[in-house]
């Protein structure tokens, strides 16, 4: 089963990455979007557009930008979604 992990706390990035399988995805939202400038995704990586724009940031290009609609569509591409808290 594939899992889309949603991360909103940048401090938990390592912890969350540790459980990622190669066909899982990681979506950065809220404060975790700051990571999209600094880090490379271990597997398929995405970042929420609105949260980047709100913060005046942009991704380093290795995270797929998704707006809210894209976020919803993304959740359908995986068997389940887990919010890493």
């Amino acid at each position: 089963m594939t899992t889309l992990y949603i991360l909103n706390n940048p401090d938990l990035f390592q912890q969350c990455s540790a459980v990622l399988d190669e066909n899982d995805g990681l979506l950065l939202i809220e404060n975790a979007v700051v990571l999209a400038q600094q880090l490379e995704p271990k597997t398929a990586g995405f970042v929420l557009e609105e949260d980047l724009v709100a913060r005046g940031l942009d991704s380093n290009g290795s995270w797929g930008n998704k707006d809210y609609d894209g976020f919803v569509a993304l959740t359908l591409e995986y068997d389940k979604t887990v919010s890493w808290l």
Partner: protein
Amino acid sequence: MRKRLSIIFNKAPYGTQSGRELLDIALMAAAFDMDISALFIEDGVYQLLDNQQPDILHMKNHSSTFKALELYGIETALVSEDALIHRRLSQSQLLPVAQPAKQNELQSIIAQSDFVFML
């Protein structure tokens, strides 16, 4: 086919209520005939320390509830070996309710679960 639920404990007890609340979720899910696993990773391993005495903080000792896990049909309880080593804890300091597990074992349980809860 029974649905599989994983409850992941990744926070130390008492600083937040997440440990107690996750336990409540696990105990409720047991009533829905689900296949439940309790996974203790990162600081969540502290939830299992044996000599907790939260009454000094006027807080309830929810760690005693961990002894009831099998009672509620939670067959699988695993604690991350790496997390224990990293925190210089040994299995003997923990409540005897969880089996030590390697990272890939924890990962495969999470992958195979239909639902995963964290708080």
